[in-house]
């Protein structure tokens, strides 16, 4: 369980998170939806301590990740894997080296074991014979898959996905969503997905939280969100230009 309480975060005069509360249940896929620029990625970075709130508390399985030493924070971070919006593969390393890197640094496995784990992780995401390629030789969808393989290779308890399907065509998008579902079934991790893929995300997530004006407007099952009476949620799902969500 990840718990956020009363989170405030501003960048200069711009208020991004404004007294946000959220409970992310263990072992489930939770999607955070909301209009662009509302701070979904900022919220995600708070979960893993890449950003610190101005005030509020963040607890991961009962342990606070705020005001702790680097060693303690790293111990908590070992529970996490993360797929970044732009994937963030190490561009001077091959695909194999990218996926092998966390294993080399965080486990005592020997070369053969690492090789077999890497190949197995790549196979799980549907990639074969690309181990020696560099990230800039891959398509957007392939990069996302490699990023996913790197995120799951240490079999973390929690995986954060920052807009995993942005910029991909509908078929690749569906494939990535299916991969998230499949890997979740296989490893049973807690997943937090930041997304504005409506309505696809309702088929992936078991919980959906709508972020708007720095707060969680509603948190519930996909059906509850789909049938919400809240005008902002209705506007966001329908994609209507009229409503409380203003395009500037």
């Amino acid at each position, binding site marked *: 369980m990840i718990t956020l309480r009363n989170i405030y975060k501003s960048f200069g005069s711009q208020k991004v998170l404004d007294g946000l509360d959220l409970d992310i249940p263990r072992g489930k896929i939770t999607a955070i939806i909301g209009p662009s620029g509302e701070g979904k990625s900022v919220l995600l*970075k708070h979960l*893993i301590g*890449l950003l610190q709130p101005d005030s509020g508390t963040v607890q991961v399985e009962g342990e606070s990740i705020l005001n702790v030493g*680097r060693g303690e924070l*790293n*111990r908590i*971070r*070992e529970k*996490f*894997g*993360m797929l*970044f*919006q*732009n994937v*963030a*593969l*190490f*561009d001077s390393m091959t695909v194999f080296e990218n996926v092998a*890197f*966390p294993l080399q*640094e*965080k486990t005592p496995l020997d070369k053969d074991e690492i090789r077999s784990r890497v190949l197995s992780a790549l196979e799980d995401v549907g990639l074969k014979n690309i181990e020696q390629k560099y990230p800039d030789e891959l398509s957007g969808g392939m990069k996302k898959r490699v990023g996913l393989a790197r995120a799951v290779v240490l079999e973390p308890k929690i995986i*954060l996905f920052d807009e995993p399907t942005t910029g991909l065509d509908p078929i690749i998008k569906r494939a990535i969503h299916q991969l998230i579902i499949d890997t979740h079934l296989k490893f049973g991790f807690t997943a937090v997905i930041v997304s504005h893929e409506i309505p696809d995300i309702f088929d992936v997530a078991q919980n959906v939280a709508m972020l708007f004006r720095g707060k969680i407007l509603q948190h519930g099952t996909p059906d509850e969100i789909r049938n919400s009476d809240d005008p902002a949620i209705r506007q966001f799902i329908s994609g209507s230009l009229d409503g409380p969500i203003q395009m500037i």
Partner: protein
Amino acid sequence: MVRVLGRTTITIVQDLGKTGWFLAYSFYMMFRHPGSLLHILKQMRFIGTKSLFVIVLTAGFTGMVLGLQGYYTLAKFGSEGMLGTAVALSLIRELGPVLAALMVTGRAGSAITAEIGIMRITEQIDALETMALDPFKYLVTPKFVAAMISLPLLCAIFDVIGIYGGWLVGVKLLGVNPGAYFYEMEKAVVWRDVFSGFAKSFSFGIIIAWIGCYKGYYAGHGAEGVSKATTESVVLTSVIILVWDYFLTSVLL
């Protein structure tokens, strides 16, 4: 007006604090996790070996210019025989460490900033953090160790090539006695001169790695942010090297 002045002062003090913290943490990490030998060797190849060509080229011509200028100055006093001493002392005490450091700043310091800056804006540094790995261990400390080892070695090469550049012009072109060129040099140059040159190079290595890594680590947004960080890195490193050189010379003289 007062508000702008106050805000600027606070920003400068904050930046200085951040820069100082970066250096202190880099040293802390250097003793705790000096980085793998492979990482350090890779960085030594990049900072040291790949700078050899530009070092040899600039050292050769610097020595030749010193030979030329020194000869015409000394000839006015009938002391052409002291040319070797003049060239060697200028190079070993001053020009070798400073020019080698400035060349490495332009070639490797800028590349260090660009490399780390691009990793920052493409979230590769964040990726390291999410893997519970300290980015300093992989990106910063190997560069510090490599620069601290490479710069004195490059300086030594600069000195030797420069001395032979001066010899080429002074002895081969202008007819200075070859025996006098090296004999007077051997008499005048003492271990303290060599030590002060190496001490300077060593500290310049720290400055190059420090500012190069710092500017990249805190690069702004997008390509423009990296470009600005790279320019600032080269300018700031060069200025700090020259200012630090003055203070170090006044202590070591």
